[in-house]
């Protein structure tokens, strides 16, 4: 654990963002119970320090790829709670117009490329985004979040190799929460040291305490500096833990209540809050005020989502293609046109 806390504004920003994520997820669970959110719902409680500590370092030129457990990453990237909750309620005002739901949040204006729900599939996509940035000399880095379960997929190994071989600016962030759905790491991987796996491909790699936002912050700062200096990829294994079930259909037969309670003692929000209070950076009353503001934000976002509209069924087949045959090509809506930036 880092000895010295950074300036107050940063600590308050981290704490606030982690509390916003925790509160958003609580609201999601409630809305799910009420039948207003359907489908699969995967909550991020316990893992907040990873997204919050990492995303704070990303600029507008950087890109992000995340998984189906991505509400926190979307919020940390600056997407509004309104657009996220409206998406989960299937509303046209949702960030993906209600077509994606919980697992498929997108915001091209923030270079947030999902919200991808096939385990491991985001790694090649992130590798390609980094290739595009390298070719176009944008200076952007792509942050790719994935769970440790993805390391069993071929796409993990193929992407490590490609990113190292082609020297691509990707920050691979493995959120190791010890369970691939309900299968413990030791029951699915012969070698459980992911840092060693990344290094085997020539990718610089470090192990990080993913329950401590200060540790994530420091590691990501160093990794990004290295990527920006060398153009080469970097891998961080963030050891963390999911406090809630894998999804809302999970009886958690694969882990003990004691284990969960032990990890909860390392709650990243409680940890930072108590240290900040002890250091005199923030008062308990101020934390209460922050929580009240967040509660208001959540209430507002739920109300926004509930009064949202449904995309007209007539638009069901819109956007399968940019244009239908026989009609003129529309200007490609790709988020970033290369323009003159890349001249080989």
């Amino acid at each position, binding site marked *: 654990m880092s000895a010295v806390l950074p300036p107050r504004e940063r600590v308050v920003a981290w704490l606030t963002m982690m509390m916003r994520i925790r509160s958003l997820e609580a609201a999601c669970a409630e809305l799910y119970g009420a039948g207003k959110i359907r489908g699969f719902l995967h909550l991020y409680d316990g893992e907040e320090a990873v997204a919050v500590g990492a995303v704070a370092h990303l600029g507008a030129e950087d890109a992000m790829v995340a998984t189906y457990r991505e509400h926190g990453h979307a919020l940390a990237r600056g997407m509004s709670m309104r657009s996220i909750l409206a998406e989960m309620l299937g509303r046209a005002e949702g960030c993906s117009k209600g077509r994606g739901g919980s697992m*498929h949040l997108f915001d091209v204006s923030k270079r947030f490329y999902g919200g991808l729900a096939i385990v491991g599939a985001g790694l*090649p996509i992130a590798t390609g985004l980094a290739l*595009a940035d390298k070719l176009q000399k944008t200076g952007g880095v792509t942050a790719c979040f994935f769970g440790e379960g993805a390391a069993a997929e071929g*796409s993990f190994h193929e992407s490590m190799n490609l990113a190292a071989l082609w020297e691509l600016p990707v920050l691979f962030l493995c959120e190791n929460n010890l369970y691939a759905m309900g299968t413990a790491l030791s029951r699915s991987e012969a070698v459980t040291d992911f840092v060693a796996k990344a290094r085997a491909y020539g990718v610089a790699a470090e192990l990080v305490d993913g329950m401590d936002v200060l540790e994530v912050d420091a590691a990501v700062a160093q990794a990004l500096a290295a990527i920006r200096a060398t153009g080469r990829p970097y891998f961080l294994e963030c050891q963390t833990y999911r406090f809630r079930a894998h999804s809302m259909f999970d009886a958690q037969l694969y882990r003990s209540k004691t284990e969960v309670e032990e990890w909860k003692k390392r709650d990243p929000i409680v940890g930072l809050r108590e240290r900040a209070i002890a250091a005199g950076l923030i008062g308990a009353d101020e934390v209460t005020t922050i929580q009240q503001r967040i509660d208001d934000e959540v209430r507002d976002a739920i109300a926004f989502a509930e009064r949202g509209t449904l995309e007209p069924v007539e638009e069901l087949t*819109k956007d*399968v*293609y940019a244009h239908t045959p026989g009609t003129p090509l529309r200007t490609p*809506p790709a988020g970033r046109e*290369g323009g003159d930036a890349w001249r*080989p």
Partner: protein
Amino acid sequence: MATVTYREAVKRGLRAALMSEPRAFLMGEDVGAYGGCYAVSKGLLAEFGPERIRDCPLAENGFVGAGIGAALGGVRPIVEVMTCNFSLLALDQIVNNAATLRHMSGGQLSVPIVIRMATGAGRQLAAQHSHSFEGWFAHIPGIRVLAPATLEDARGMLPAALAEPDPVLIFEHINLYAMEGELADDAGAVDLDRALIRRPGTDATIVTYGASVWKALEAARALEEQGVSAEVVDLRTLRPLDDQTILSSVARTHRLVVVDEGWRSGSISAEIVARVVEAAFDELDHEPVRVCSAEVPIPYAKHLEDAALPSVAGIVEAALEVCHA
């Protein structure tokens, strides 16, 4: 006008694309130093350099996915997959990502990627290098599926595909690469939306695509000698299908034969017959007949491979059957 091979026509399309679109680059297994498994990209590495002619490791899901990511990021990858059998290793990225992202993101994302692959049988490459999966891919909304049969299309579909804001898959039949013919020096991009009548006729419509177009044309010549005038429709694009050209041909001939190197069950030939029956049942004077590959993994031995594939004789027989001749 010059005599060139289909292989050279594809290469001309590639060169034109690379020269006119500075964001375009070619990536795939052995496209660079080796010159392409089917020698399509021979010489391009020296001309365009390793940044734009990018050799890939044997990792189809990884490099096709990286191509999709690169397209999302604003460049224009042309990905070569050595054969369509190998594309099965990249199905996840093509079907779950490339095909879905525009719709699933509410129209925010665009995946302007072109994926080229070799398809088809006839070179005694046996059951892991000879199959025709274009019909499978044509099942998927969100992607376009092209099958160039002629030199003009081999040359012109690539730049047209590159201009598309959506994923386009191009299936080049391995038997066509060595085919020679005349190609205009100023041949350019072609329309991707329309099927074309390669030979007009009045008695029966033969709908096909890719290398089978040439078998159908040969069959049509044989049929002519027997007094049957066959019209050959080249689909060119398997998704989206140009229903109009098919239906208007059937409305003239009232008889339909579909030739497809894919297997019959659940095939593009089944889709075409279904559409004609749904939309023009009353126009038909005979049940449609299909000529497809035998439902076996394509075997190595020449006589068995030949027996497994649609043949000119089989197409003639089918056309005579629908004409009651």
